[in-house]
């Protein structure tokens, strides 16, 4: 359950880049980075 949100964002970002939509790809990547940062901060 914990892994699905970042996985979903990674798949979404990849799909946007693949479809030639780098702006939305960047937005999804930024959200993914924020989520991973929150996970790392919680673990520390």
């Amino acid at each position, binding site marked *: *359950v*914990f892994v*699905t*949100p*970042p996985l*979903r*964002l990674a798949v*979404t970002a990849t799909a*946007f880049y693949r479809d030639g*939509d780098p702006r*939305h790809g960047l*937005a*999804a990547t*930024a*959200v993914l980075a*924020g*989520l991973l940062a*929150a*996970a790392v901060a*919680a*673990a520390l």
Partner: protein
Amino acid sequence: VTALLLALVGLAAGVLGALMGVGGGVIVVPALSAIVGLPFRHAVAVSLVVIIASSSASAAAYVGKRVADVKVGVVLELATVAGAVAGSTLAVIVPVGALKLAFSALAIYSAGMLWVRRNHATEEASAGAYEVRRWPLGLGASAVAGAVSGLLGVGGGLFKVPAMTLGMGLPFKVAAATSNFMIGVTAAASAYVYYARGELDVDVAAPVVVGVFLGARLGSSLLVHLPARRLQSAFAALLLFLGGRMAWEVLGAIR
């Protein structure tokens, strides 16, 4: 018997979440307190996991059917994440009672507006077949949803769905599906914190999550078939109930 009851609670939360674009925490938190006497913070931790499970199960269906507007979702989620960080920071400064009162006022206002405009609800259920407007309003509401999520441990769908429907011009079904896509990400950030603190009771969460998966799949198959006007009215009633209950709690505590 307890596990079966918990799975049934999850089933109800999953159906509600998939149909309304909320995580179902409004059912899970009080039910867990009543059935297994879980302390509030532990119930919130399970609720966050339920939101992620509900979001994962229904978002997969909604993205596949192109009901969820993923482009709108990822842009709004940027504001939500920023709001969640700000909310976590503000948690030590702003009194929770004041936030709850602000939430209840906004919820009651949104309920009224959704009820008034219920006859304008369209049956449109495909992403992109409309003009998205008032981005600043949507981003602002998403930031507030993120802040509330960080403070109270909820998904924020109660803010996102009215903002997308009333403010940005998304049809109700698309807004509910898009909110479902977003709330799992919002809840995940908070869920990691609760898990790291050791406040997540996995034995309680597991049967609820099983029920939620089933309920969310059922709810996501029902969404496109149910009339948008009824769904919007039901969402307004849910907002009114939650806003009223929260205001009652805060004002009762003051008195």
